[in-house]
C-alpha cells in the first residue's frame, strides 16, 4: 500500500505535487507461465497495491475454479484476460496491466513466450522501454531465453532485466545464479542490448520482487521494483535529429494552416529553419503549439501543431526535418521483418507500407535470409512464415525516408498491410546500410530504373519523331484476369486504329514471352519482372512515336503504377477488362484454369493469387456481357475525346 504510506507522509497536496513529476515506464515481460511470469506480474501488482479488493475476491473465486496453486492465490489468473484463454490456461495475446508507485507509473505488456507467439512478443516489445526476461533457476538458459533476448534486441529495447526466478527451488544457491549469468554472456555478446541486469528472485514468495530477500544475503543489488523505479530512461529518446511526420494539415480558417503530428525525435523551436520532405522546400517555424497551447519549443514525444512563415506544399505523409540533418530518401530499403500472417512472405509480393504517417504500395524484391530465432544464425529461405524473422529488400514508388531503426525507433519502423484482407501482416525495422551496400544499390537502381542515367542527347526528340509519323503516341494498358478478353480486344483495336491511319503495336504475354521474356518463368518474382519489361518496352515505343496496346494481367496496383511511371502518366491509359472469374474460366479452352485448379500451375491470378481491381481506371469495360464491337466503340470514343486519333 505504497500510495497510502506516501499520503500519510506528505498529505494529499504533497502527493498531487509529486505526481505531476512522475515518469512513465513501459515494460515487456518475456517468459512462459512455467517460468512464473504471470505470478511475477501478479506479485508486482499486488504488492504495490495495483490489485483492488473486489478483483482479489474474484481472483480467489477463479483460483478454486481454474487455479494451479491449491490454497494459495494464483496470481497468474490476474493476467489472463479472455475467457477461452482462462480455460485453456494459456495467454495467447498481448495483455496490458497498469500499476504505479510514488515514483513512476508502469505499463506492463504481458505476452506469451513460446515460439509460435513471436509476433505477440514483437508487438509488446515495439513500445517497451525495458524488458524482463524470466529464467527458471532449475532449468537455466534455454533456447527461449536466447529467442527472447534476440527479439528484445531486434525491437530496440535498451534495458533488460534477467530475472532468475524460482530461487527457492534451488536452495537460493549463489552458484546456480552465477552459472546462469555466465551462460547468458555467450548470447548476450551476439545481440545489441546496452544495459543488462541480473536479479535472483522468488516471485511466488515475493523475494527480491518488491521487498529485499533475506534468504539471499550474497546478492547485494536492488530488488526488481527498486530497479524499475530508478532505471534511467530519459537518455533513450533521440533529441538530436528533428523528425516531425505530418499527420494532418489543420485548416480551421483561411488565416491558419497548421501541420499537426507527434515529434518522433529532436527539438523544434520557434524561428527554426525546416525542410519538408520529399519536396525539399525550406521554411521557418512561425508558431509551435504543444497539446493545443502555444510554446517556444517542443521535444521528442510531444503532440504538436506548427505553422510556417510561408506557404509551402506539405501534406499527410510528408516529413519535417532540418536542412542540415534530414534522412536520406530512398526508393529501396533493407529491413528486418517479423512476419505476422498465415500467408507467407515471398519475394515478388506487394503490400501497403505504413511508415510514420506515410502509406504507400511497396514490393518485396528480395528475401535475403531467414534468421533462426533459437540459434541466432541466418539461413537461406524462399519464404517467411508466421512468426519468422528475416531480412528483406523493399521497393517503393514513393521515396521513403530511410532513418535506420537503430537510430530512430519511430521513423525507422513500419508495418506491412495486406491489400486484400487489410490485415497487418508484418512489422519491419529499417537497417543501416554500409557505404558498400549503398553503392551497390545505387548501381542497381540506375540499372533498374534508368532515371539516373543521362540520356544521350540525340538530335531527334520524341516530339519530333511523333510529328514526323503524324500521330500522338500513348500506351493503352489493358488489365484483367486471364481469359478476360484482353488480347482479343487488343488485336481488334489495333485493326480499328489501322483503318483510321494510326499505327500501333500490340504487346501481350504471347509476344513477349517468346523473345524478350523467354528467360522468365512463372514465379511471383518473374511475373513482376515480365510486367516491368513490358512497361519499359512501351515507354521506348512511345518515345519513338508508336502507339502501344498492352494486354497484361498485371494483377497488382503496384505493378500497374510502375508501368504508368515508366511510360509517363500523361501518355498512360489504364483500361480494366472486367469479367467475373467464372466467365473467364468457362471461356478457357486451353485447360489453363483447370490445370491451375489441380495445382499443376502455381501463381495463377484468380486461382491462388489475388487480383486487385483498379480503383480508378481510365475506363472500365464489361468484357463478360458486352460484345467486342461495342467495347471497341467505347475505346475509340475515349481516344477521340482525348484527341489521340487523327
Amino acid at each position, binding site marked *: 500500500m505504497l500510495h*497510502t504510506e506516501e499520503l500519510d507522509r506528505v498529505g494529499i497536496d504533497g502527493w498531487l505535487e509529486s505526481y505531476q513529476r512522475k515518469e512513465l515506464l513501459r515494460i515487456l515481460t518475456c517468459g512462459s507461465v512455467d517460468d512464473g511470469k504471470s505470478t511475477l506480474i501478479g506479485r508486482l501488482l499486488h504488492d504495490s497495491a495495483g490489485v483492488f479488493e473486489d478483483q482479489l475476491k474474484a481472483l480467489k473465486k477463479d483460483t478454486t475454479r481454474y487455479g494451479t496453486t491449491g490454497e494459495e492465490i494464483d496470481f497468474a489468473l490476474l493476467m489472463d484476460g479472455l475467457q477461452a484463454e482462462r480455460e485453456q490456461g494459456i495467454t495467447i495475446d498481448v*495483455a496490458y496491466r497498469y500499476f504505479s508507485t510514488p515514483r513512476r507509473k508502469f505499463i506492463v505488456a504481458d505476452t506469451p513466450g513460446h515460439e509460435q507467439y513471436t509476433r505477440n512478443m514483437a508487438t509488446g516489445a515495439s513500445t517497451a522501454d525495458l524488458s524482463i526476461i524470466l529464467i527458471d533457476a532449475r532449468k537455466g538458459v534455454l533456447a527461449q531465453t536466447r529467442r527472447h533476448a534476440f527479439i528484445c534486441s531486434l525491437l530496440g529495447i535498451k534495458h533488460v532485466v534477467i530475472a532468475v526466478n524460482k530461487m527457492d527451488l534451488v536452495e537460493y544457491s549463489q552458484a546456480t545464479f552465477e552459472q546462469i549469468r555466465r551462460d547468458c554472456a555467450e548470447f548476450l555478446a551476439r545481440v545489441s542490448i546496452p544495459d543488462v541486469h541480473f536479479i535472483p528472485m522468488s516471485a511466488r514468495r515475493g523475494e527480491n520482487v518488491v521487498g529485499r530477500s533475506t534468504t539471499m544475503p550474497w546478492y547485494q543489488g536492488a530488488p526488481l521494483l527498486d530497479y524499475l523505479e530508478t532505471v534511467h530512461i530519459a537518455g533513450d529518446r533521440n533529441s538530436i535529429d528533428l523528425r516531425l511526420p505530418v*499527420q494532418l494539415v*489543420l485548416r480551421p480558417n483561411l488565416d491558419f494552416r*497548421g501541420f499537426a503530428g507527434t515529434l518522433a525525435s529532436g527539438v523544434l523551436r520557434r524561428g527554426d529553419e525546416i525542410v519538408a520532405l520529399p519536396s525539399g522546400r525550406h521554411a521557418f517555424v512561425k508558431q509551435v503549439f504543444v497539446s493545443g497551447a502555444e510554446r517556444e519549443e517542443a521535444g521528442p514525444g510531444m503532440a504538436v501543431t506548427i505553422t510556417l512563415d510561408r506557404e509551402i506544399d506539405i501534406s499527410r505523409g510528408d516529413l519535417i526535418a532540418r536542412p542540415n540533418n534530414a534522412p536520406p530518401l530512398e526508393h529501396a530499403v533493407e529491413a528486418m521483418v517479423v512476419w505476422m500472417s498465415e500467408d507467407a512472405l515471398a519475394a515478388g509480393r506487394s503490400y501497403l507500407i505504413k511508415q510514420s504517417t506515410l502509406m504507400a504500395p511497396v514490393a518485396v524484391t528480395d528475401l535475403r535470409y531467414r534468421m533462426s530465432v533459437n540459434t541466432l544464425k541466418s539461413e537461406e529461405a524462399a519464404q517467411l512464415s508466421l512468426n519468422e524473422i528475416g531480412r528483406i529488400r523493399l521497393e517503393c514508388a514513393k521515396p521513403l525516408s530511410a532513418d535506420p531503426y537503430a537510430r530512430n525507433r519511430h521513423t525507422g519502423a513500419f508495418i506491412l498491410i495486406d491489400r486484400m484482407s487489410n490485415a497487418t501482416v508484418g512489422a519491419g525495422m529499417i537497417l543501416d546500410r554500409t557505404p558498400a551496400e549503398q553503392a551497390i544499390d545505387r548501381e542497381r537502381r540506375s540499372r533498374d530504373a534508368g532515371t539516373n542515367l543521362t540520356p544521350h542527347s540525340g538530335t531527334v526528340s520524341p516530339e519530333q519523331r511523333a510529328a514526323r509519323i503524324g500521330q500522338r503516341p500513348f500506351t493503352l494498358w489493358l488489365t484483367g484476369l486471364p481469359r478476360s478478353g484482353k488480347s482479343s480486344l487488343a488485336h481488334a483495336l489495333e485493326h480499328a486504329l489501322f483503318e483510321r491511319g494510326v499505327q500501333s503495336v500490340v504487346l501481350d504475354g504471347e509476344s513477349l514471352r517468346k523473345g524478350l521474356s523467354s528467360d522468365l518463368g512463372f514465379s511471383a518474382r518473374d511475373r513482376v519482372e515480365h510486367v516491368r519489361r513490358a512497361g519499359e518496352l512501351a515507354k521506348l515505343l512511345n518515345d519513338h512515336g508508336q502507339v502501344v496496346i498492352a494486354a497484361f494481367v498485371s494483377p497488382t496496383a503496384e505493378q500497374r503504377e510502375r508501368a504508368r511511371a515508366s511510360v509517363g502518366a500523361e501518355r498512360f491509359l489504364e483500361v480494366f477488362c472486367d469479367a467475373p472469374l467464372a466467365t473467364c474460366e468457362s471461356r478457357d479452352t486451353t485447360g489453363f484454369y483447370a490445370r491451375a485448379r489441380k495445382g499443376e500451375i502455381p501463381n495463377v491470378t484468380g486461382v491462388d493469387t489475388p487480383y486487385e481491381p483498379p480503383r480508378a481506371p481510365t475506363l472500365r469495360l464489361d468484357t463478360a456481357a458486352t460484345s467486342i464491337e461495342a467495347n471497341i466503340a467505347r475505346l475509340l470514343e475515349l481516344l477521340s475525346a482525348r484527341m489521340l486519333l487523327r
Partner: protein
Amino acid sequence: MTTFQLTHLEELEAEAIAIIREVVAQFEKPVMLFSIGKDSIAMLRLAEKAFAPGKLPFPLLHVNTTFKFKEMISFRDEFVRSRGHQLIEWINQDGVKAGITPFNAGTQRYTHVMKTEALKQALSHYGFDAAFGGARRDEEKSRAKERVFSFRDRFHQWDPKNQRPELWSLYNGQVAKGESIRVFPLSNWTELDVWLYIYREQIPVIPLYFAKRRPVLDRNGTWIMRDDERMPLEPGEQPQMRSVRFRTLGCYPLTGAVESQATNLREVLEEMLRSRTSERQGRVIDYDEAGSMEQKKKEGYF
C-alpha cells in the same frame, strides 16, 4: 538546458492526441461517444487539444437509454452548448415502444436493447466508420487485450481471436466498406490518471461524482439512487438520505453509489488513493458472469 522528459500524464496526453488525429486522417466519418462521465469529459478535452485552435472535425454522440440520471442530461446540454460542440442524441425507439425498462426486462436484455442495439442503430443510421469510446484497459479483464483501433465487421461485432497486431504507434485503419472501428484513446489510462488529468486541467465534472446527501435504496448491498418515480419500491421500502457519490455513471437503476464525504476533486482523489475497491464494483452489468463483458463486446457493446 531544457529537459524534454515528459511526465506520465504528458505522455498519455500526447499518445491520446496522436490517436485522435490519426483517426481523423484515416477515416471519412468519425464520431465521438459522449457519455457525460469523467472518461468522456477527459477524452473530449484531449480532442479539443488535438484540433486547437480549430473546432472538432466530428460530432458527439450520446446514446440515451432514457434511464440516465436527470442531472446527466442537464449537465450534458449545458456542457456541450458552452463548448460549442455538435451533439447527436440517439434513443432506441423500438425499445421505447416495447416499453423496455431495467425493471421489467432484466439488466441483460435492457442493456442489450437500449445500449448495444441503440449504439449499432445510431452508427448505421449516420454511416459512421469510426467511433471513439472512453474505455480503458484497466477497467476489466477482457479490455486488457483490446486494441486501440478495434476492428468491427459490418454487423459491428468484435472477434477477439482475429485482432490486428498493433505495433509502435502505427495504427492500421484500412477497412472495407461497411466495416468500422472503435477507437480507445484512453486505452493506457487508469482511473487515477483520468482524475489526475481532470484535476490538472481543471475540467468541470458532473456533481454526481461528489458526495452529497441523496435518496438511496439498499439493493443487495448496493446503494441505488431512486432518481425518479419509475423505479418501483419493494413493499415497505423507503429511500434513506445518505451522503454518497458515484465512481462511475450510467443508468441510475444500475449504478451503485459509495458512501463518501468527499465533496471536491482533491478529496475524491485522496479517498480513491486510500480505497481498496475498483470502480467497476458499482456496476451491476459486470457481475452476472465471468466473461460477461467479453460476451457483450462480441455483440457490439463498447
